[in-house]
C-alpha cells in the first residue's frame, strides 16, 4: 500500500528537499501552500511599473513542478488574522508571530490530511535554522499544539528528534532521513546539488512581510490609529504600496511613488477619498481616516503636491474625489521639503 504524505511547501529550498527525501522512499507526496495575505509573492513587483517586465514566478508552484507533485493553495486570510492579532507565543523581532504561524499551518495541514485520507505531514523545518520558530524546544510545541503529534515528520532533521509514527511503522526508513541543524545552509545546498536542483529560491526568512521592519511599523501604525487590531485584506495589501504619511492622528495619506502604483491605487477610488494632481504630472493619494475638515484637506493636498512635478510651483491644482460626492478642484502651494515633518512619515 502506497502511503501518502502532505508536504508544507513554502517555495524555499528546505521544503523542496524535505519532500524529495520522502518521495525517494516511495511515498506519494502532495503539497499544500497557505496564502496569508502577508506572503511576499511579487506583489510590489506586479504593481510597480518598472518591475512589470521582470515577471516573478510563484516559488511554491515552481517547487511543486520540480517535484512533480500536486499543489493545493489555500486561502487562509481570514482565519490567519487571529494568529497575527493574538499570537500566544508572541512576536519575533517585528510583528512576525513565527511560532504561532507554524503551529497554525501544521494544524491546517493536519485537518487537510484527515479530510483527504493522507497518512502523515512533512515540513522543511531544521533545528536551529530560525531564531524564533525552529529552536529545538519549539519542535515538540509545534507537534503538540497543532494536534499533529507524531504524524509530523521533519525529514531534514529527523535523526535529531524522537522517531515519529511514519518511522515507527516502517513507512519511512529513518536512516534515509537527515540530521541537519544550525544556521548553516551548506548541508542543504549540498543535498540540492545531489538531487540536481538548481535555480531554487534564495532561502531563509524572506517569505513574509511581517518579518520586515518597515512593513511592521506601518501595520502597528494602522492598529494604533484605528484603535483596533482588526484588518482586511485590502488594508494589508495597501501597506505594501506607496509612501505612507500621517500628518495627524485623524488621517493618513498613501501616495503613489510611480505610475504603476498610481494605477493600482486608482483602483481604490470608489472606496477612498482621493487626491490627484491635475495641473502637473503627479501621483494619486488615498486618504485613510476621518472626513477631513477644510484645513486638513488643504494640508493633504499640499503634501501630495510636494510629490508632483509642480513641487516648486506657486500653485498646483489637484482634484479631490469622494466616492459619495462630486469631485472638486483645489489649488494649493506645495509644501517645501522641510515642512514635511519627519514624524509624519510612517515609511
Amino acid at each position: 500500500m502506497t502511503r501518502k504524505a502532505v508536504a508544507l511547501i513554502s517555495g524555499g529550498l528546505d521544503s523542496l528537499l524535505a519532500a524529495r527525501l520522502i518521495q525517494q522512499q516511495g511515498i506519494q507526496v502532495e503539497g499544500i501552500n497557505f496564502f496569508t495575505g502577508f506572503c511576499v509573492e511579487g506583489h510590489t513587483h506586479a504593481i510597480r511599473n518598472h518591475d512589470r517586465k521582470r515577471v516573478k514566478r510563484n516559488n511554491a508552484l515552481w517547487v511543486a513542478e520540480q517535484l512533480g507533485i500536486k499543489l493545493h493553495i489555500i486561502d487562509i486570510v481570514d482565519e490567519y488574522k487571529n494568529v497575527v492579532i493574538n499570537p500566544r507565543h508572541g512576536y519575533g523581532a517585528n510583528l512576525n508571530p513565527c511560532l504561532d504561524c507554524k503551529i497554525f499551518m501544521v494544524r491546517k495541514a493536519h485537518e487537510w490530511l484527515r479530510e483527504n485520507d493522507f497518512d502523515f505531514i512533512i515540513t522543511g523545518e531544521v533545528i536551529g535554522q530560525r531564531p524564533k520558530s525552529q529552536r529545538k524546544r519549539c519542535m515538540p510545541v509545534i507537534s503538540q499544539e497543532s494536534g499533529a503529534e507524531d504524524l509530523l515528520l521533519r525529514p531534514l532533521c529527523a535523526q535529531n528528534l524522537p522517531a515519529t509514527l511514519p518511522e515507527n511503522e516502517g513507512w519511512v526508513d529513518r536512516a534515509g532521513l537527515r540530521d541537519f541543524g544550525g544556521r548553516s545552509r551548506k548541508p542543504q545546498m549540498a543535498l540540492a546539488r545531489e538531487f540536481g536542483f538548481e535555480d531554487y529560491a534564495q532561502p531563509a526568512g524572506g517569505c513574509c512581510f511581517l518579518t520586515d521592519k518597515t512593513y511592521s511599523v506601518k501595520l502597528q501604525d494602522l492598529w494604533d490609529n484605528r484603535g483596533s487590531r482588526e484588518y482586511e485584506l485590502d488594508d494589508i495589501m495597501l501597506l505594501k504600496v506607496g509612501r505612507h504619511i500621517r500628518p495627524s492622528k485623524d488621517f493618513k495619506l498613501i501616495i503613489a511613488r510611480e505610475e504603476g502604483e498610481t494605477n493600482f491605487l486608482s483602483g481604490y477610488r470608489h472606496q477612498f477619498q482621493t487626491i490627484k494632481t491635475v495641473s502637473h504630472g503627479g501621483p494619486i493619494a488615498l486618504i485613510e481616516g476621518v472626513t477631513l475638515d477644510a484645513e486638513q484637506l488643504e494640508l493633504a493636498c499640499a503634501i501630495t503636491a510636494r510629490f508632483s512635478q509642480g513641487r516648486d510651483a506657486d500653485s498646483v491644482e489637484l482634484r479631490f474625489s469622494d466616492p459619495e460626492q462630486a469631485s472638486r478642484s483645489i489649488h494649493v502651494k506645495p509644501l517645501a521639503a522641510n515642512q514635511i515633518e519627519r514624524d509624519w512619515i510612517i515609511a
Partner: protein
Amino acid sequence: MSEIIEVDARRLFCPLPVIRLQNCIKQQQPGARVRIVSTDPGSMNDIPTWCRINGHQVLASEEQDREFIFLVQKATMEVSHGG
C-alpha cells in the same frame, strides 16, 4: 460544446488568481472549460504552471490591455503523482 465558466480575477495578486481558478475548477465536471481574466503579470507563469501540475490544459492565452486571459479545460482524468 458546454458553456464557458467565467472567473474574474482582476485586481488580485498572486496567488489569488490561481486560487480562484483552482476553486472554480474543483467544482466543475471533467472537460469543463473556464475562462479566467487576471491583471497580475505573475499569472503568465503561474496559471500555466498550475495547469501543468494538475493535468489541466491551457487551450488559449492572450494579453489584452494589461489583462491576461486564459481558457482552461479541466483534466478529463485524475493526474497521478505516484511516489
